[in-house]
C-alpha cells in the first residue's frame, strides 16, 4: 500500500480498498458495494456519475505523469458534485502538484516519496491563476480584475 504523503482534508482518512471502474459499474452498479474506486487513464470517468454519492474515495492513477487524462477525470467528477477524497496515485511529480490540486485532487500518494520542502514550494507556487477551474475554489485573475 502506497502511503498518502499529502492530504488536504479534515475528515478521517479513507482506506477502503478501491475497485476498478469496470467492477464498480458492473451489473448496473450492483456487483460490488465498494465505496472506493480507482480510475485508470483509459477509463471514462463519466461512467461513475450515476452512483457518485456512494463513493468516499476516488483514486486516479498516473502510470506516467506525462499522461494527463487523469486531470480531466478528476475535474469533471468534481464538477458533477463529488466531495469525497480525490487521490492522485502513481507517478506523481513535484512540478505537477499545484496543477493536480487545481483539478480537484486533495490527496497525493506518489510511488516515490517527494522531497517535502520542494513539494511545499510547489503547492504554494502560484499566488494567482489565469483560469477558473471552479473545482479548486480559486478566483481567476480575470475575476480579480473585475470584482463583482
Amino acid at each position, binding site marked *: 500500500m502506497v502511503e498518502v504523503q499529502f492530504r488536504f482534508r479534515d475528515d478521517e482518512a479513507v482506506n477502503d480498498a478501491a475497485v476498478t471502474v469496470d467492477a464498480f459499474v458492473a451489473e448496473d452498479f450492483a456487483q460490488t458495494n465498494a465505496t472506493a474506486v480507482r480510475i485508470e*487513464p483509459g477509463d*471514462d470517468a463519466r461512467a461513475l456519475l450515476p452512483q457518485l454519492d456512494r463513493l468516499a474515495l476516488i483514486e486516479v492513477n498516473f502510470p506516467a*505523469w*506525462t*499522461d*494527463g*487524462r487523469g*486531470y*480531466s477525470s478528476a*475535474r*469533471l467528477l468534481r*464538477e458533477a458534485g463529488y466531495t469525497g477524497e480525490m487521490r492522485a496515485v502513481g507517478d506523481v*511529480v513535484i*512540478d*505537477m502538484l*499545484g*496543477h*493536480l490540486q*487545481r*483539478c480537484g485532487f486533495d490527496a497525493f500518494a506518489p510511488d516515490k516519496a517527494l*522531497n517535502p520542502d*520542494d513539494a511545499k*514550494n510547489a503547492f504554494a*507556487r*502560484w*499566488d*494567482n*491563476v*489565469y*483560469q*477558473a*477551474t*471552479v473545482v479548486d475554489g480559486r478566483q*481567476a*485573475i*480575470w*475575476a*480579480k*480584475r*473585475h470584482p463583482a
Partner: protein
Amino acid sequence: MYKYDEYDQQMVDTRVAEFRDQVRRRISGELTEDQFKPLRLQNGLYLQLHAYMLRVAVPYGTLNSVQMRLLGDIADKYDRGYGHFTTRQNIQYNWIKLDETPDILAELATVEMHAIQTSGNCIRNISSDQFAGAAADEVIDPRPYAEMLRQWSSFHPEFLVLPRKFKICVIASEKDRAAMRLHDIGIKMIRNDAGEIGAQFYAGGGMGRTPMIAPMIRDFVPLDQLITFAEACLRVYNRYGRRDNKYKARIKILVHELGRDEYVRQVEEEFAHLLTQPIEPPMAELERIMAHFANPAFETGAADDLDLSDPDFRLWVERNTTAHKQAGYIIATISLKPVGGIPGDATADQIRLMADLGRDYSFDELRVTHSQNIVLPHVKKADLYTVWKALDEAGIGTANIDTVGDIIACPGLDYCSLANARSIPLAQKISQRFGSAEKQAEIGELKLKISGCINACGHHHAGHIGILGVDKKGVENYQLSFGGSEGADTSLAKITGPGFDEDGVVDAVEKATQVYLANKQGEERFLDTYRRIGMDPFKEAIYG
C-alpha cells in the same frame, strides 16, 4: 498592443522562479534527464544537434521595439550573435547554456516576454495574422481574442500534459495569411448576419507526417462563450486523443478517426455541460484587453503617394508592401531571405535595427510572420523610403516577398536533432539560382517551402512547391511536390515522383518554373497554372 498588469507580470516572474528551481534540481542530480525533459520542453528548452536551443514566445507574432531590442541583446549576451525567427512566429536561439537559461528568462520577463509553452505536449503559443490591426481587409483585429486565449491556455492545469502538442491560430479576414486551417484549432473571427462578432471554429488540421485540413466544427461561437467552447474542444481531445502512438496523437487523427460529426457531437455535449460552470471571463475582460489594441494615433490626411523614382525602391515597394487600412500608411514586410542567406536568421545588429525602425516609424510595433519575415505594420508612406534605405544598408532590404526567393525552410540537419536532411543549403542554392530580380519578376508569386524531415516544420505540404528532405541510406535525398497552399484556398501538395540529390532538386525546380512560364495564361500564378494543367506536363519535364 497588450501591456501586462501586475497579475500578468507576476505570472511570468513566478515561472522564472519555478524554472530556476527546476534547473537547480536538474544540475544537483535531483531530477534525471528523463524527468527534466518534459519540464524543460514546457519552457521551450530543447536539446538540439549542437547545444540547447531556447524558443522564446512572441504571442500572436506581435512585439514592441523594447522587446525586439532585447531579443537582439540576448543573442549577443547569451548566444552567438544571431537568432532564428520561426514558422510559428517565435524566435529561437541555438547555442544556449542550461545554467544561464533562468537568467535569460528573467531578462525576458523585464520586457513582458517568456518561453512558456513554446514546446511540449501542451497548448503552444497562439499564432495570428501578421497584418492584424493594419490590414485593409480584416473584419476586426483578431489579437484581443488571441490574448484572451493566451491567458486561458497559460498553465491551464487540465491541459498541460495533452496527448501531443496543440496549436491554435486566430485570424479575422477572408484572406488567410496564417495557415489557419492547418492548426489543431483554427479560429476565424467573423461578423454574422445580425452584425455580431463571433468565432468560427475549425479543428483537426495540421501538417506533419499526416497533413490534414481542418473541417469547420462550429460556424459561430458567441464572444461570451469563446473560452468555454475552447475548453470543451480540449477536454474531448484530452479524453480520447491517442497516447499509444505519438505519431497518431494529434487531434487531427482523433477528428479523422472519430469522424468530424462525432467529434462535434462530443464537443457540443461537453460544451453544454461546461456552460453550467462559471469558467468564462466576463465581457468586461475582453473589453479591457481590446482597449490595448486600439488604433495608434494615425495622422489624418497623411500623403498617400510614394516617390518611386528609385527603381530599387520601387521594386521593394511592389514586392514587400501591403495596403493599410489607414490612408497615408502602408504595411512593410522586411525579408529575412537575402539571396544565399539563411531563411529566418537575423544578426543581433539587424534585430536591433529593426527594433529602432519599429520604434521610429511604426508606432513601436513589429510582427513576426509565419514565413519567417518581420513586419513593420504601420509605416507612414512619407517615411517608407527612409525605412527601406536603412534596411538595405543593413542587408535586409531584399525585395522578394512571396517570390521563389522568399523560401520557408526549417533549420534542418544543420541544427535539428530530428532532421533527416539539411534544408538551409538547399534554400541557399535555390535562392541563388533564382537570385536575379528579372527572374523573380518573371516567375511572380511562388511559395517554396522546405522541411528537413517529415514533421514538416518547413510547411512543405503547403508550398506551391514543397521539398521534403529524407535520409536515403545515410545520404540526403529530396522529394519534390507541387500544388500546396495555405491561403483561403488551402490545399496539400502532391509528390512528383522519385527524389533527387541537392543539385538535382534545384534543377527540377528550375524545370518546373519553365513549364509554368511556357503554359501560363494571363495573370496566372505558378499554383494556378499547376491546378489547371495538372502534374503531367511537370513530370514530363522533370523526369522525361
